[in-house]
Every structure is written in structure tokens, then in C-alpha cells.
């Protein structure tokens, strides 16, 4: 029997928990920086040789090694690189001679705009479709809807995208531009029409997963004792759906959205290839092809940080939306309830039977 908790004015227990998770996130980012550095600079292969290609004369390779500082001790190289990164200086692109940070800033901004658009479109759509299917469970609409979602999921993303282009961008119905080649001189919000088709395509391909997730967690919540109890207490149906059920069904949906975002942040290649949208994914691809090491390092680092951040936000929302976690008296209680990262050097506390 849990003893009732007395309300005190001290800080909520999730704050230290969150700070701990933040620390973990930073730790992860640091480990990733190490991995990126080792993979690109410290491995036995010679980056200068890689950059210049096998036919380049030895003198130019040596010159480049000098320029890149590759003849310094490896630790010095790492710390000077890390120091630069911490100051926000990601180096200069070998290919275009522009600062890496500036390139990433505009490209990553485009990807983030795409993500925001998908988020704004998909989340309300998934919630409303999922909830309404759950309410009409096993009806004809539900079965039809589920089949349609599976069909959508089974259709390759590029087919969906091409289908959208055929629908909206043919000479007869020329509503939206088929190709999203942004004008670099104009701000993104001044050319939103280029964003629409990529957003539609990405939303369509991530919608089935989220709808099915919302539907499943809604059904689970609707089947719970507290919903039957509320029904038998004569609470109106709309209140049962929106106040009693949905808040409890949101948490799995949040984790689902986070998963979708995590896949998209590494580059929504679907949209970037078919619509030639200038996102981070194609940038990374071309940087790898051009052996543009500083750019590769910078892009990978930024993507990793983005994934870490998405995880943090999703976990924080989960805790804040679950009263039992939010009002927990000790941070360890949150950790035990969350299937998050556990410290590997300490045996997890035994679970009370």
C-alpha cells in the first residue's frame, strides 16, 4: 500500500531525473563526436589520400596533410577539433570552401521546416483518425480504414510521392510545383508552396504507423476498468473520450511520433530525391561522395544531436503527461517505470514484489 504522499514545496523529482537524462544526452553526444572523429580522421587510412584520390602525386598529399594538421599527435588533433566544434566552428568545406556551419545551417533549417510541417499535419490527423477508428472498433469503417492504412504502408514512399506529383503538378492541374528547388535568396517562409508536396508525401508514408498506434492505445484505454466505471457513472461519451481516455492513450503516441521524427531527421531522402528538396540528407550524401570530411563530420554530429534532443523531449513529455511519474517522490522511481537508459555500472534496484 503506497503511503499517501504529502505535498511539499520542494522541487519535483522529475527535475533531477531530467538533469540526469540531459547529462546522459551530452555524454552520448560526446561519444558520438569521438566515433565521428575516429571514423574520419584517426583510422589508419590517410584522409589526405582519400580526399585527393589514388592518382594524386605524393607531394600534394603531403601538403594537404600539412594543411589539415594530420601530422600532429592524434590526441592533439582530437582536442583541437573538439575545441573548434564547441566554439561552433565546424571547419571549412573542402569542396565549396564555405564554412561548414553555414552550409549545415541552411540545409538543416530546411529539414527542420519539413519536420515541423509533417508534425503539424500528421499528429492531429493521426489522433483524430486513430480515435475515431478506435471508437468504431470492428465496424465496417474500422476494417476498411485499417485495410486502407495497410495498403498505404505497403506502397513504397516514392510511388506515393510520384502519385502526388501526378495528382497536383500535371499541366492540367498545376496546383503545386513538382520540384522543390528553393530560391536561396528568399527566406523559406516566402516560398512555402515548395514545401507542401514533400510534406504530403512524408506524412502519407508515416501516417499508417501512427494511426494504428493511436488506435491500439485508445482501444486499450477504452477497455480499461476506469472507462467502464465512468460510463456506468453516466459521464457523457465525449467527456469519456477526450478527458478520460485520450490523456492515457497519448504516451504511446508520443513515443511513436518521436520514432518517426528520428527517422526523418537523418534526411527525408524520399522527399529530397524525388522533389529535389535541399535537405540535410542529400547534403550528407554528396559530402560523402566528394570526400568532404569536415562537412561529413559536421552533418553527422548535428544529426546525432537532433536525435538525442528528440529522445529527451519525448521522454520529458512522457513523464509530464503521466501523473504517477510526474508526482514521483524520487527520481529512481521514474527510472524504474521508464524503459530508458539504465546505468550499466550499477545494478538496477530490485523490484519490490
Amino acid at each position: 500500500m503506497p503511503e499517501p504522499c504529502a505535498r511539499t514545496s520542494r522541487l519535483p523529482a522529475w527535475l533531477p531525473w531530467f538533469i540526469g537524462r540531459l547529462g546522459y544526452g551530452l555524454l552520448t553526444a560526446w561519444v558520438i563526436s569521438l566515433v565521428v572523429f575516429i571514423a574520419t580522421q584517426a583510422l589508419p587510412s590517410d584522409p589526405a589520400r582519400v580526399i585527393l584520390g589514388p592518382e594524386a602525386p605524393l607531394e600534394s598529399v603531403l601538403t594537404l596533410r600539412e594543411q589539415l594538421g594530420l601530422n600532429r599527435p592524434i590526441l592533439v588533433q582530437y582536442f583541437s577539433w573538439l575545441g573548434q566544434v564547441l566554439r561552433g566552428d565546424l571547419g571549412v568545406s573542402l569542396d565549396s570552401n564555405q564554412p561548414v556551419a553555414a552550409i549545415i545551417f541552411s540545409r538543416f533549417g530546411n529539414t527542420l521546416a519539413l519536420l515541423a510541417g509533417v508534425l503539424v499535419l500528421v499528429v492531429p490527423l493521426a489522433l483524430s483518425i486513430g480515435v475515431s477508428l478506435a471508437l468504431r472498433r470492428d465496424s465496417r469503417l474500422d476494417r476498411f480504414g485499417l485495410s486502407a492504412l495497410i495498403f498505404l504502408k505497403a506502397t513504397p514512399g516514392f510511388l506515393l510521392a510520384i502519385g502526388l506529383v501526378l495528382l497536383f503538378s500535371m499541366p492540367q492541374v498545376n496546383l503545386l510545383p513538382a520540384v522543390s528547388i528553393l530560391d536561396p535568396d528568399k527566406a523559406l517562409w516566402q516560398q512555402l508552396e515548395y514545401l507542401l508536396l514533400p510534406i504530403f508525401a512524408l506524412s502519407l508514408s508515416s501516417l499508417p504507423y501512427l494511426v494504428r498506434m493511436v488506435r491500439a492505445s485508445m482501444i486499450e484505454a477504452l477497455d480499461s476498468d476506469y472507462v467502464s466505471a465512468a460510463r456506468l457513472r453516466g459521464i457523457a461519451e465525449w467527456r469519456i473520450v477526450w478527458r478520460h481516455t485520450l490523456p492515457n492513450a497519448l504516451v504511446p503516441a508520443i513515443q511513436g511520433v518521436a520514432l518517426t521524427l528520428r527517422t526523418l531527421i537523418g534526411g527525408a531522402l524520399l522527399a529530397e530525391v524525388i522533389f529535389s528538396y535541399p535537405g540535410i540528407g542529400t547534403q550528407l550524401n554528396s559530402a560523402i561522395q566528394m570526400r568532404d570530411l569536415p562537412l561529413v563530420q559536421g552533418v553527422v554530429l548535428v544529426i546525432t544531436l537532433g536525435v538525442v534532443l528528440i529522445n529527451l523531449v519525448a521522454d520529458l513529455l512522457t513523464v509530464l503527461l503521466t501523473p504517477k511519474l510526474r508526482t514521483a517522490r524520487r527520481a529512481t522511481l521514474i527510472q524504474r517505470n521508464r524503459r530508458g537508459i539504465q546505468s550499466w555500472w550499477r545494478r538496477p534496484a530490485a523490484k519490490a514484489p
Partner: protein
Amino acid sequence: MNSYAPLAPSLASQLPQDPWPAAEPVGAGLASERPALQVQNLRVELNTGADIIDHINFTLAPGEILGLVGESGSGKTTLATALLAHARRGARIAAGRIQVADASLLELRGEALRQARGGLIGYVAQDPAQALNPALRIGPLLLETLHAHEPQLQKNAQQQRLQQTLIDVGLPGDAEFLRRFPHQLSGGQQQRVMLALAFVLRPRLIVLDEPTTALDVSTQAHILQTLRRLCKEQGVAAVYVSHDLAVIKDLVDRVMVMYAGRIVEVASRQRLFARPSHPYTLGLLAAIPDVARQHPLQAIPGHAPAPGQRPNGCAFAPRCPRRTAACEQAEPGLQTLEPHQQVACLHPQLEAPAPTAALQVRATRVDQAPLMAISNLNLTYDRQVLFDLALEVQAGECLAVVGESGSGKTSLARTLAGLGDNASGELSFEGQPLSLLARQRPGTTRHRIQYIFQNPYRALNPRQTVAQCLQAPLEHFFKLKGQACRARIEAALQRVALPVSVAAKYPHHLSGGERQRVAIARALVCEPSVLICDEVTSALDVSVQAAILALLKQLQGEGMTLVFVTHDLGVVRAIADRLVVIQQGRIVEQGPVDEVLDRPVDGYTQSLLAHTPRLAAAL
């Protein structure tokens, strides 16, 4: 009245009025009042057309409390929710009439039905931890309920009603309490909140589905007391569903026994406990262990039929000791036996049953070196659970470990079995020191201490047949394979009174009692000296519990040592030789069962005993 008073005098003296008004006639409530509830020919069936309950007729007077008793599958929960015009998924209310106050419930639709649910009929669910929404605070929940039914109520009047209801059910009404979430309340407080949610609307009828099953005995006693007071004060009729006749004995005015979807006996409380007539009622009463005295528990053989598989004639006939050829011809209807008693049986028991002889007091054991001894046991999870505990288990005895939830009794059992992490202390087995962790124990000792889990539905791997499940320990401990292995498995199944054919079945083909027998067989194939039983009967029906207890008793007779963890003092009386009472991680009392239960010394033991419902006084 007299039978009640000595049990809980403190309880009776707090009731504002005579707690036992003269018994009312069975069929129709008091002649002067309109009945609060009238049920006629109610039938609920599955979508396949098989009936779950049928031919249900009864009436309740305002303020009357009806106990609805039956084992799992008897249809009591189906009937309880049907009283709110609700059927679970896959079932529907097919026919009948339910009249609550002036409303004919089954004819209501939409908004009128919503108003009737809660407004006319309140519902209190079985497990308050599940029935309260984890995302909503208590205060808003109560206000929402009030607002859903009486939106015209002024804010002041709302607050007043809220506060009055909270006082009625015995909860604090301050703002801090109302801001709490359900998980911040104790189990008893949660169930009081459920009561408040029902009573805040001032309904005419309240349906309670085993509301105290998940609670400790002392909490249960207080909830029952609160409930009875509220019903009598406010004239609210109540239907109290329970599987345990002992629990309702101090609460209800009238008892209705259900079997296989039919009412088999209705009688006033005094009448039913003094002169039960239906063989099923008699069987139930003989199966319930009683804390007041030890009597041989008798299980009812066989199973209750599932919906759609009812035999012709009386559904109980295949299990009935009094059946004749006529029982299998036609289904007996309810006949009035006495003004206060109706029974659906062709051969009802007419005389009061002869009191069964109490078993003789067990011989106290000579002191010898203990089989198992633990001392200085400390156990800490987030907080410390066990404090410097010391315990000795004699060879061949049945030692009961008793305590309320959170007392640490299960932690103690798990530590003895070697399943508890984070424990420190000295354990010895046959005089040799033994590790507290099973994985550090030598194989030759490990197989001698076996553990049986509380819930047989979760203790067996659903993907393994019974044979596979029993084979693993045989291979592991004794390196047995093939024919030798099969012989051992069959011997173990026979020892727990299961047919050998069970070996090829999966757990989901077995009933709860059969699963628990398989779990016991799994422990037995290890050839243990000690069986640690963690509330092994608490998930089972009373008649199945009686059979499992008899099995354990028989094993003990064959030389097994039992450590039996339980919260039920009746079970302790039925099976144990010695008893240890644990409160908050410390032993507060121990000794031979009869001595402790008849002359408890510690205050905690005394209060546990006072709150434990008992049967014998009524017989």
C-alpha cells in the same frame, strides 16, 4: 443480532440505529414502500445465443442490502452490470424487465440511460486501483460526476454536497486531498473515493462488484461498516457481489446464491447461514475455511458448466451428492420453502446441517534442530522492508506467515526461496549455512527448496505444454531424459490428482485450480523438502481452494515442510501448525496456530482477528 455483537462490538456500537431491523419478507420488500429494484425474467446471452444468466427474478426494498454470491463463471458479475443495463462486449441483455424506482431501465436509451446510470444506480467496481482514472485528480472527478447529473446545481451547493459526501464515506475534504491523483491514495482510500463517486449522486440503488477483494481485512471491515451505515441512513438499496460468504455475513440482509447463471437459493441472512438448503450452498459453506475453528474443508468435485454447455435439468446435478434421475430431467424453478427462503432444488436439505466435528488439536512438536533457520534478515528496496527478522522452520511442519499487504511477508518468502535481491542475513539449512541467492546455492540443495507462486495464470509459460514445463527441472537437476523423465512427470501429476492426459495440454486449456496443481507438480518433480507457498489459493474460488489446501495437507502428511504465506487467517486455521505474524517487516507474534488464534497477545494480531470475517458464529 447476538451472533453479530461479539464479533465486532466496536462496530455495532458506532451504528446510529439498530443495525439489524426485523427481517423483511423475501419476495417483495416492505409492503408499505415501493421496491427500489424489481427484476423480472432477466436474460443475458452471448452473441452466439447461449445464455449467461436466465430466469432472474428478485425485488429489493429501499435500504435493503442483498448479497449476491457465487463462484467465478456463475454469472454474478454479468447480473451486476446488467442491473445498469450494461453487458460486456460479446454479450447482450436479451430479455427481461428492470425497474429502478419509477424507471424501466431496459427501455431507456441515450441521454435518459446516461442519466439513470449514476443518477439512479451507482456502481462500485472490484479493483479501485483499476477503476480510478490514473490521469484525473480526485476532486475534479467528483465534481465531473456531480455536474454530469445535476448541472443546475449552484457552485455552493455543489461544494456542500461534495464535502458532505466525503464526510459520509470517511475521507478528508481539504483542498490538498482533492488535488491528489489515485496513485497517491491507499487502497482503502481509493475504494472510499469509489463509494463517494456513487453516493454523491444520491442514487436509489448501488451495485458493488466485490469491492473489497483487493483490500486488507481491516480496511475491508471499515469499508463494509461505512457501506452498511450509508445504505441504512440514506435508504439506498444495495446489491453486493461476492465470492465469499464469510465476507457478506456481517453486511447483508438477504443472500442470493447463483450457480451457472441461475438463482439457486435466496434466503434471509440468518436463515441461509443457519439452514442452508441447496446442495451448492451447503458445498460452498463446507469449503470456506473459518478462522473461528478448524473444520475439515470439503471441496465441491467437478467444474461449473460454461455458458452453452449446461446439462439438461439441474445444472448442479453432475456435481451434486443428492442427485436423482429426476434432477436430470427438468430444470427446477425457485420454490418457496419458508417465508424467508426460496430454493431451486428437487431435494433440498431441510434440517439444519449437523455441525461438523472440529479436528482434534494437533500434537505439538518436540523441539528439535530446525530444518531451516534465518536470522538478522534485513531487506531494502527503496525503503527497508524487513528488519532484523529471525525465523525457524521445523522439519515436517506447516508454518504460516501472516500479514497485510506491504508487511513484507512475500519478500520474506522470496528471500527464503533465494529469489530476493538486496537481502542480508544468515540462512542455514539442515545446520549448514546457505546463500541467500538461489543462483549461488549448490544444485544439491537448490532443488530441495521450491517456490509456488500466487497467480497460477502467470506462473506457467503459455508456450509450453505441462510435460515440457515439468521436464525442464528434471533435466536440469537429475539429468533425466526420455522414458525415465516421463515416468517422473506422470508420478508427479498423479500425486497432485491430475489425470496423466494433462501432460500434453497447454496452460490455457486448464482451469485455475488445475494450473495451480501443475505449478505444485512442477515444484514436486524437484523432490523438495520445503515448499514455499505464496498466497497460492488467493486467486482461486473457495471450492477449488479447499481442494488445493487438502492436497498441500496431504503432501505435508507425506513428510513435506510447508511455508505458507497468506493474508487469510481462515486458511491459516485450516492448514497451518505454527503461525508467524508480520507487521511492517517485523515479527510481532508467533506460536502454535490454536494458541495464537484463540489467545492472541499482540494488539496487531488481535485487530487482524477482530476484522477477519467468520462463519462459525452463525452456524
